[in-house]
């Protein structure tokens, strides 16, 4: 509860123009959001762009921010929406897939990257890229962010049962992919 109260007060200060408060929000959430974007997009460059845009947008529209909500879920939803928009851009999406197919080092750890991805996250990202988009999103938001099924259902405009199914099937396939990777 202390953390919760602290976060609400932090948001209140941020809404009132405190750069220190925003910096704390940024430090607290940046890694989780980057990880979410990486597993949703399978592309570190694109993930960095999305998270950068989310922070800029939140800072710019702070007056409209609601203090009563769950900031982590709000930021994650914003990342998921932007990731979806990003995927709709056919050119960038195909380009991203092409880079993966050719083993382009853009998804690997590079000094110029904002996000320095561990090998484990790299493997996870590659496996997640093979899931259908809705399953990938449901698994990432539920497992990675801790969002509830009803929250994800609202975001995906689907029923709770559908979201539960997406998570179940997504996890099953992820297990299969990671196991096959381990045996090869």
């Amino acid at each position, binding site marked *: 509860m202390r953390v919760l109260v602290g976060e609400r007060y932090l948001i209140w200060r941020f809404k*009132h123009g405190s750069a220190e408060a925003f910096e704390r929000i940024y430090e607290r959430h*940046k890694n989780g959001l980057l990880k979410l974007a990486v597993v949703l997009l399978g592309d570190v460059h694109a993930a960095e762009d999305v998270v950068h845009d989310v922070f800029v947008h939140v*800072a710019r529209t702070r007056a409209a921010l609601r203090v009563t909500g769950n900031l982590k879920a709000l930021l994650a939803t914003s990342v998921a929406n932007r990731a979806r928009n990003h995927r709709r851009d056919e050119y960038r999406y195909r380009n991203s897939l092409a880079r993966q197919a050719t083993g382009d080092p853009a998804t690997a750890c590079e000094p110029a990257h904002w*996000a320095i991805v561990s090998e484990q996250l790299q493997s996870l990202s590659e496996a997640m890229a093979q899931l259908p988009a809705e399953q990938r999103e449901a698994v990432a938001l539920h497992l990675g962010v801790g969002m509830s099924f009803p929250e994800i259902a609202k975001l995906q405009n689907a029923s709770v049962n559908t979201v539960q199914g997406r998570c179940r099937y997504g996890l099953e396939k*992820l297990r299969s992919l*990671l196991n096959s990777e381990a045996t090869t």
Partner: protein
Amino acid sequence: MKRPDEVKGFYRNANLSTNPALDRAVLTDALDAGGLTYGRRPPATKGKDKEQTRPGRESPAALFGRMIMNHRLMTPAVAAVISLAVIVGLSLFTGNGAGKVYARAMSELHSAQTLTYSVITRTGVESMPTVRMDVAFKDTGFVRTATADGYITVAQSIGNKVKGISIVPVAKNYVTFEVENMPDDPAKDPWAMIEMLRALPARADRVLGRRELDGRMLDGFGVRKGDAIATVWIDATNGQLARVELECPSAPGMSVILSDFQFDIPLEDAFFSLEPPKGYIPLEAQADAAGVGERDFVEFLRAWSLWTADGTFPPLVAGAEIAKVIVHMAQENKFKAGWDFDPGRQRVVYGGLVFISGLPAGTWRYAGQNVRFGDPRTPVFWYQPQGSPSWRIIYADLSTADVAAEDLPN
């Protein structure tokens, strides 16, 4: 083969780090986009500004109040504030600044290295002067309190051991003390206390509006709990805690004001020296907090009431201010003729203070100001022993009783 729970573990453990240089660049982009600046409020459009500060909608009280007003964890927080008059004294003897709790609070306060503020205490006791005390903490476990007329106490905590020095300029003497087995109480951490005070507007019963004080625009919030009233003033430009005023109508004339909060101002190690001034006479006190109990506190109350000419109990039981209280009461002939603060009496006072310092913040209350020894129905002190569901009350005849929380005095 990975099991389903191992897949979840694999997912959660797949992490990343960030490039610090690019971190700063991204943060700067966002700060620029939002017009956010450090340490002061950016100019805002009139409409938005009005919307953000409209009482009842965007004020901290309105925003946080409904969420936590009834949360049980907030009660100790307010109780801690009520007993803030002694927090400074308690902090002298507890492990603040060295433990894991401190580290967590530090992280939440932007890794501040130092903290200073001022405390003004009025006891409500006739001829007892108002005491202004400057308090300073440093992250190496040091704390220092100083009054304008030279009463200085410095303590350093290392693990659960505290050692320090108190200087009494009037008597030209000093006391070195060492206390072992002090419990680690998160609520006594000075940084945690400041965070608690910062969040206190969340419990506001009243929004007092905006006032200018010492050239600063402050937003005021009134919080009432039991018979204690706290008024919290937050700097309107940066949301920082600016001033806290505490009063108890049942103890007329007694009040505490905290102000001048500062983080990260440079404080040299020499400022926290445990060395006595030259020419001062040493006295020593040692105690094991684990061996001090209620009987020591009762003995302290009994002795004090015998020392005073009118048979009253001490005006306060705060460690940091007690030396000054004793000196002033002696100068005002409040003690019986021939009374002297000899080493035996010092040990009695010391035992009482060590007992108080071992109690978790918010689990005790002293109401013995202006009360004379003798009435078996007047409670002067009550506390909750650690791990006990009931409370102990000490009455003015120094008899004791166990009571349920709902039967405590108002």
